[in-house]
């Protein structure tokens, strides 16, 4: 892609009211998150930190699902691929944090590129795409479980080194509650802003045009399959990034990070927050993670049951998908305008 083409795709137009609403709500949210460490306790801080890292995962799915309409039902494959690449490289190969992070992103991107090429160019869309990607997550988890001597099997790997980055000879290591919290906060802010800037111009318009009618977009001269493949790969890369950061902040990696439950959960975050609004899925992630915390304190086995009931409820209570709620909120200009149109597909 030439530079001038990129300039056209990502040209930033003047702010309109919807943009101001987004920026205002994002600024408000991050201001709250910024002052939270001054009254939150250590436990609350670690919960919020994990939620922030997970919200990057939610953003990655929303970029794909919200903009292009293609739902990856096994997005945890990429989260897990990033997590395990990070864990294995830092723990077993002794690679530095930055290199390992980049490698984790690359690993997820390569998996998405390969799978995506065959699926997207074969015209696999909608429910078929969802199903094959779900199978991907199921098999990914099995692979992790069966190479137990490398991946630790069911128990996973523990004692991962802290994130540390060397800049001009100085070494910054992120450990302790507050530095890790602010690192997660910064990461979430950068990804949110980056994605928003990327999709507010013509690039986002093209993706949404493909969502509303692929043939029409194709007839207008856009290479729909190529756009979808790129979006899928970028989305997977971001998922890999959040997986890699999550696992090294936790210091542990387990097979749950690649399985179908997490893949289900991320869909719930995005659906709750409102598909396509970026900041909505982030808030959805905070809310659902908080809810899981509450439910797990009652019983740890109850969560998948609630998750399942939630899925059924979403479909029946909000026939157009949960978008109905998001649109309603959007009309109140809380979530920066309900961009998602039509049924959740």
């Amino acid at each position: 892609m030439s530079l001038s083409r990129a300039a056209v795709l990502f040209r930033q137009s003047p702010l309109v009211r919807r943009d101001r609403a987004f920026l205002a709500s994002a600024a408000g949210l991050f201001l709250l998150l910024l002052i939270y460490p001054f009254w939150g306790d250590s436990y609350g801080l670690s919960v919020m930190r994990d939620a922030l890292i997970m919200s990057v995962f939610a953003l990655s799915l929303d970029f794909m699902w919200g903009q292009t309409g293609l739902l990856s039902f096994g997005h945890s494959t990429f989260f897990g691929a990033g997590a395990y690449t990070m864990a294995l490289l830092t723990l077993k190969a002794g690679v530095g944090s930055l290199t390992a992070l980049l490698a984790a992103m690359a690993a997820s991107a390569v998996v998405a590129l390969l799978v995506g090429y065959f699926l997207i160019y074969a015209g696999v869309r909608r429910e078929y795409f969802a199903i094959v990607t779900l199978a991907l997550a199921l098999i990914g988890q099995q692979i992790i479980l069966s190479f137990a001597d490398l991946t630790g099997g069911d128990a996973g790997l523990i004692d991962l080194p802290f994130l540390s980055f060397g800049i001009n000879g100085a070494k910054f290591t992120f450990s302790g509650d507050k530095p890790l919290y602010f690192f997660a906060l910064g990461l979430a802010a950068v990804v949110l802003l980056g994605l928003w800037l990327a999709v507010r111009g013509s690039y986002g318009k093209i993706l949404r045009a493909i969502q509303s009618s692929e043939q029409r977009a194709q007839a207008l001269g856009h290479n729909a399959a190529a756009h979808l493949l790129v979006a899928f790969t970028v989305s997977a890369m971001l998922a890999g990034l959040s997986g890699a950061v999550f696992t090294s902040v936790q210091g542990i990696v387990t097979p749950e990070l690649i399985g179908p439950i997490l893949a289900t959960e991320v869909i719930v975050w995005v659906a709750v927050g409102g598909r396509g609004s970026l900041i909505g899925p982030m808030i959805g992630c905070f809310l659902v993670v908080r809810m899981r915390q509450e439910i797990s304190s009652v019983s740890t086995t109850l969560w998948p049951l609630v998750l399942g009931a939630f899925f059924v409820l979403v479909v029946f209570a909000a026939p157009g998908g949960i978008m109905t709620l998001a649109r309603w909120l959007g009309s109140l200009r809380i979530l920066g305008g309900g961009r998602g149109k039509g049924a959740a597909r």
Partner: protein
Amino acid sequence: METALPAALNALTLISILMLVGLGMAIIFGMMGVINLAHGEFMTLGAFTLSCIQTLGGSYWLGLALAPLVGLAFGFLIEGLVIRHLYSRPFETILATWGVSLIIQKLLEIIFGSAMQPVFNPFEGAVSILGVACPAYRLFLVAFTGLVIALCLLAFRRSQFGLDLRAVIQDRDMAAAMGINIKRTNSLAFAIGAALAALSGVLVAPLVTVYAWMGVTFLSKAFFVVIVGGTGTIAGVAAGSALIGFLETFFNYTIHSSLAQALVLILAVVIFRFRPQGLVRR
């Protein structure tokens, strides 16, 4: 011969199971355009029925007879509660049936615990074929499945219900105009698909570990059967099962079993790339 015959029998076992699971899934998909992610749970329910009956002192054969009825009942129940309301919204059906699947798994785990459920094999011995000892149970499984599939084929081709099914698969609206009760046909087809899956659960139970999540592993294989074979035809299901079952058994003998699954996934995706309609066209 020493390894070829048992390998062939293993492949045939897997192919039989996949055919039973895939058949219900493909018919449901072909008729209603509904992808039922809870289909694997019907299989789990079948296996659990057997385990319950055997724990209570009943025989394997009682389990084999009762499990399809349990599947049938749950099939009607889930069709009536969930699927029926989502016929025109295939995407939402995925979400809803996945929710149902999680709920059934978790309820089974809460009721029966997460440990492996005990199941007893009715034929412990081996039969000697051409001087090679073959497990009697697998021979029974393959023969019994063959019989069931043959009956299904007969019903699909010759019975009034089969005619209705084929008409609905071919053209839903036209079938309705011809006076076929679409709702009843759909619900019966769904329940029969569930019963077949429950039956396959009983058949496979003595060969695998029976626990609340067992359906999921077969679910992904059944997808590939349907995707690779094409929807709405028994021949497609047979072709898909044969290919997936053969590939997986073959890879299992040569490489690690989960790598084998990954390879099967990759091959299914590649086949999908070049034959999006499936191996057998309707």
